[in-house]
């Protein structure tokens, strides 16, 4: 009984609200369409009457008609007008206008309408709540997020902060200069003992230059940051984002940001919400009154004629406010991430400046061992790309910010709402249905906001690795919000008044549970919801005949460039396989290699292309040695192919980390799983490395001696000589196979004693090496290893 009372009270207030609205709505007139065939072309009306002011409307009197108070609904322009009625008669005409003079029909229709209020009211409040949330988010964005982000950018785009790390830098520099002494001693000893890898000829000059540059590393880094800041400022001014004022002549302050431009973004969002979007909410009450049309596809009784189920349409309207709020949240979160990127930039650059002396020093003494002792950011190879990336990160971010603001402004201006004038164009043949007009009306404002958010999102995605994880986090939150909306709307549509109230609560509770983790059901609901939106909206747009020529032209224009655009997004395995086949067939090995090296190709596609090249035996050493390819091998997708590639180039094994041991791979680890058949495929460059041949099993060495190419055999012979030089201190002549044979015979006792010595070693790898030396030695003397 209590629930019944509550429902009755709610219904009573709802009725009062409707009556209040009827009295209030449509205080002004609107410009409507006249059914003059000359005013319509195949692609739509000649004049967009609904966006015209009173004067402009009257100036186009042949096609448009200004409808003032008391003229709406039943007038000549009535068909297609959905929200412009401003008297009780207009309102009744919209919900039951088709009843004409049939009194029974009128009574049934009005009673039916009253019953449908049980559904309309909660959905109205549900939509209202979404609108309020959107408004709140816009205010938060405008008054809180923008100033914070502006401050963060200010802080990041000045150079004052870097002076604070000078003390740390000095300590690191002193340490580096002490290292110079140690390095010189190592080089000296290596030169005395003729240890070629550390010989003075290789490193003395470069180490001296590096030692000098170490002292200037602070100034060099700071100047680079100033250049990057000025560049960022220049681009900001060029894009007229209104955020940056270069401090010309400023001693240390660099540039100053204010993000004034972004405040305008939230103004635009505010206007979009209340001027274009919010008027749609009244449609919840003004769409038809008949019960059959409310729940089924029966024809409606109101004017204009609407195809049901009306419940779905008004649920869509109510939901649209939540989607708008969700997009506002998206913009805010992405903007906040934007600010965080600048904050991290500052911290990162400070840390990189502090360790710059070590990085500069390693540039002058770049040996494999030094790279392992000073890895990643302490090493020039890791430090320099990271420094450049972070110093200039502002450039792509500002470009995307500028593009985003432009998109928002342009698309907002280009998205006239039918609701603004309260009137849609009348049906011109099958060009546009009322429903498709409404959907366009609802979703066009989204395009502008979405374009802005996506532009910012892309900007952040282009930032170095750490920020990508933050963006993934943003996606997690957005998925949750989407799921919450889906749960609420589904319940609202299916269960009426009580369920709708509960659904709103469910939605709210879900939103409150962000930190509690995602429930599988909610996620699935969210995915299904987003999926159906993704499928449904483009489908609905395609049904609108007026858009077809544009869509077709766009498709034609896009056709030649589509493969390029598509490549970063080819993530489905099957699709990637087909694309890889196509590229290989059309562009050959070179084309496939270039595609693998490209930054703008998805890892899945790169993987498939690599698999294709390996299958065809066309994977070149040039590609394997390229930085881009090696970077790809370090990705999740690339790591699937890492071992197969290293089987070809065992010499590169130490450059990659073994995920099982968390240490660089050793040649032994790669060779361990290789069959003699695989061993024959090892590249010549790998066979020239003594570490590789030393780690081979006798079977693998035998396989190459018997089945290898001339170049492989020569490489094995030369590397064998190098190993003997190291192990037995004997120099072998490798100029011809005959001379090698003779010199092995000449050094026979030394080699035999080395083999015996290694066999006695407690280390299994020494014993294995002894067997390899015996195997290859016998192949040389047995005249099987020749390279004629």
């Amino acid at each position, binding site marked *: 009984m209590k629930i019944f009372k509550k429902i009755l009270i709610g219904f009573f207030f709802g009725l009062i609200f409707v009556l209040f609205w009827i009295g209030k709505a449509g205080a002004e007139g609107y410009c409507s369409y006249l059914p003059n065939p000359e005013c319509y072309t195949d692609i739509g009306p000649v004049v967009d009457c609904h966006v015209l002011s009173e004067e402009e409307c009257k100036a186009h009197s042949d096609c448009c008609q200004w409808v003032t108070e008391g003229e709406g609904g039943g007038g000549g322009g009535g068909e297609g007008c959905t929200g412009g009625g401003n008297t009780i008669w207009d309102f009744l005409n919209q919900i039951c206008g088709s009843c004409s003079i049939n009194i029974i029909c009128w009574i049934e229709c009005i009673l039916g309408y009253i019953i449908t209020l049980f559904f309309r009211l909660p959905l109205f409040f549900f939509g209202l709540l979404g609108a309020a949330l959107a408004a709140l988010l816009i205010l938060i964005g405008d008054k809180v997020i923008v100033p914070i982000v502006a401050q963060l950018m200010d802080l990041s785009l000045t150079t004052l902060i870097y002076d604070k790390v000078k003390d740390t830098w000095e300590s690191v520099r002193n340490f580096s200069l002490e290292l110079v002494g140690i390095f010189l001693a190592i080089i000296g000893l290596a030169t005395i003992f003729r240890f070629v890898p550390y010989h003075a000829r290789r490193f003395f000059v470069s180490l001296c230059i590096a030692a000098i540059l170490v002292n200037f590393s602070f100034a060099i880094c700071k100047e680079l940051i100033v250049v990057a800041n000025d560049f960022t400022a220049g681009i900001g001014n060029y894009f007229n984002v209104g955020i940056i004022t270069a401090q010309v002549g400023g001693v240390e302050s660099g540039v100053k940001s204010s993000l004034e431009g972004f405040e305008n973004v939230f103004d635009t969002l505010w206007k979009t919400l209340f001027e274009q979007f919010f008027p749609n909410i009244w449609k919840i009450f003004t769409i038809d009154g008949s019960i059959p049309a409310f729940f089924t596809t029966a024809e409606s009784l109101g004017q204009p004629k609407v195809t049901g189920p009306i419940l779905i349409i008004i649920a869509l309207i109510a939901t649209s406010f939540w989607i708008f709020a969700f997009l506002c949240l998206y913009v805010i979160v992405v903007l906040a991430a934007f600010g965080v990127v600048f904050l991290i930039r500052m911290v990162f650059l400070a840390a990189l400046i502090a360790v710059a002396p070590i990085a500069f020093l390693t540039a002058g003494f770049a040996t494999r061992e030094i790279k392992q002792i000073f890895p990643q950011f302490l090493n020039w190879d890791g430090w320099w790309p990271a420094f450049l990336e972070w110093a200039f990160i502002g450039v792509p971010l500002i470009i995307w910010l500028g593009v985003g603001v432009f998109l928002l402004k342009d698309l907002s201006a280009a998205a006239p709402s039918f609701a603004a004038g309260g009137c849609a164009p009348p049906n011109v043949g099958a060009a546009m249905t009322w429903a498709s007009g409404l959907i366009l009306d609802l979703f066009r404002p989204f395009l502008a906001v979405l374009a802005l958010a996506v532009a910012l999102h892309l900007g952040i995605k282009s930032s170095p690795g750490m920020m990508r994880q933050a963006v993934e986090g943003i996606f997690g939150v957005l998925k949750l919000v989407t799921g919450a909306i889906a749960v609420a709307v589904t319940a609202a549509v299916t269960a009426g008044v009580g369920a709708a109230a509960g659904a709103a609560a469910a939605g709210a509770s879900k939103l409150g549970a962000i930190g509690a983790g995602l429930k599988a059901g909610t996620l699935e609901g969210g995915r299904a919801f987003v999926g159906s939106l993704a499928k449904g909206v483009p489908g609905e747009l395609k049904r609108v005949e007026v858009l077809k020529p544009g869509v077709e032209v766009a498709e034609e224009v896009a056709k030649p460039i589509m493969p390029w655009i598509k490549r970063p997004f080819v993530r489905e395995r099957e699709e990637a396989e087909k694309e890889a086949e196509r590229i290989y067939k059309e562009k050959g090995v070179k084309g496939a290699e270039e595609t693998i090296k490209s930054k703008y190709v998805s890892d899945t596609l790169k993987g498939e292309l690599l698999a294709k090249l390996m299958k065809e035996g066309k994977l070149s050493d040039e590609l394997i040695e390229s930085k881009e390819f090696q970077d790809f091998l370090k990705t999740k997708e690339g790591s699937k192919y890492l071992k197969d590639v290293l089987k070809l180039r065992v010499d590169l094994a130490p450059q990659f980390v073994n995920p099982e041991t968390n240490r660089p791979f050793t040649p032994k680890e790669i060779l361990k799983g290789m069959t003699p058949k695989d061993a024959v495929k090892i590249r010549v460059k790998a066979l020239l490395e003594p570490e590789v041949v030393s780690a081979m099993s006798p079977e693998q060495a035998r396989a190459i001696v018997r089945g290898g190419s001339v170049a492989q055999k020569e490489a094995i012979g030369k590397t064998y000589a190098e190993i003997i030089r190291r192990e037995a201190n004997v120099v072998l002549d490798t100029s011809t196979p005959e001379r090698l044979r003779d010199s092995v*015979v*000449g050094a*026979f*006792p030394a080699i*035999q004693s080395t083999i015996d010595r290694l066999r006695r070693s407690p280390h299994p790898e020494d014993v294995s090496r002894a067997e390899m030396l015996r195997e290859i030695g016998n192949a040389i*003397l*047995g*005249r*099987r290893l020749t390279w004629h």
Partner: protein
Amino acid sequence: MALSNPTNQKKFLSPEDIDVLVEIIKKYNLGPTEFFDNPEVEKMLSKAKTPEERIKIIKDLPFNKIIDKLEEILRGESSLDDLSSFLKKDLNLSLFTAEKIAKEIKERIFSIVPEKKEVLEKPTEPKRDIYREPIE
């Protein structure tokens, strides 16, 4: 891969040819074919005082001598028909052994199948039967 005939373009023996040769040398006990970890070779080389002497000892091994001869044949500098006399003379083998080894090398390395002697069935004149001859 065994050679199809001695006149082809190949001038050196393949590892597979050498495997076959090693088998033949072992079969006829002609000397060492493995070098490292072979006490016999170590003993032979221990007598040598200089690298040059070691090189000479190894070069004089039947294994190397035969390979050198076979490669000469491949290069066309010598005839395959001389192989048995070479084996007899340079390796101090009996004629019978030398011919046997030469035959096996020809068959297994040079893939020469000995030509089958054609049996000519000449119509033989019937023997005279002096008893049935008409008395002249």
